[in-house]
């Protein structure tokens, strides 16, 4: 019966989204810390994760989300900003940080909303 409570596609996607936000934060942190490390190649959460997540939401398929795990990997498409091969762009990283914060907030709101609606449904009372 609890699958009915917590198995909805939006809720499951929000939880996965939160996991990804935390990973993205760690990736940005590593990139900014190594802003001046020679030869450092920036890392990120691969675009495939986001695409798979969106695809699963489009198809309304929570089951396919179960195996999806966001990870951090080297960004192969990043270009070198300096002669020593460092591929970190501070502006891009800071922007990513800001966007990530908002996305994190979004997922938390979705989850909180879900919880409060469930509680309201169970108790027959709002808040």
């Amino acid at each position: 019966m609890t699958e009915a409570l917590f198995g909805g596609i939006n809720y499951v996607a929000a939880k996965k989204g939160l996991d990804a936000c935390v990973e993205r934060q760690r990736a940005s942190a590593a990139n900014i810390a190594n802003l001046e490390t020679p030869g450092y190649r920036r890392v990120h959460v691969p675009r495939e994760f986001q695409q798979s997540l969106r695809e699963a939401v489009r198809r309304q398929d929570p089951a396919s989300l179960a195996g999806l795990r966001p990870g951090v990997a080297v960004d192969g498409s990043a270009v070198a900003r300096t002669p020593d091969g460092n591929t970190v762009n501070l502006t891009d990283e800071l922007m990513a940080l800001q966007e990530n914060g908002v996305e994190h907030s979004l997922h938390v709101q979705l989850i909180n909303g879900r919880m409060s609606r469930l509680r309201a449904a169970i108790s027959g009372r709002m808040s």
Partner: protein
Amino acid sequence: MNLIPGATSATQGLQAEQLRMEVISQNIANARTTRTSSGGPYQRQAVRFSEALGEALSGVDATRGDRQAMPRLEILPDTRPPVRVHQPGHPDADGEGFVSYPAISVHEEMADLVSASRTYEANLAVIRNGRALAQQALSIGRRA
């Protein structure tokens, strides 16, 4: 506990930049030091970030904890020779009346300082953001 995501990397970054700023400040303070306890003019200190560790980077994996590439800083004596200025009356003038000054350009040091501060602030922003994420996560389920 690693409640703030990215704090480990950011802390390393902060330490590195702080060290760099200390070295720069020392260079600026000693830009005109013509005689040190070891004799001779002050020798400029340069900082250098170590090469990125290849394997550690490609192995960044969420499930293995906070294993991320850490910036490493080395302090090296600068190899630039001292600048010789003709000042016969100076107490540290050599036989030919030349005084050796450290090869330090205050403008260059200041530019480095600005760059270091900027990077320092960026690392602080990472920690601030991470903290906001953690506090937001803690608010899950909180009922007014």
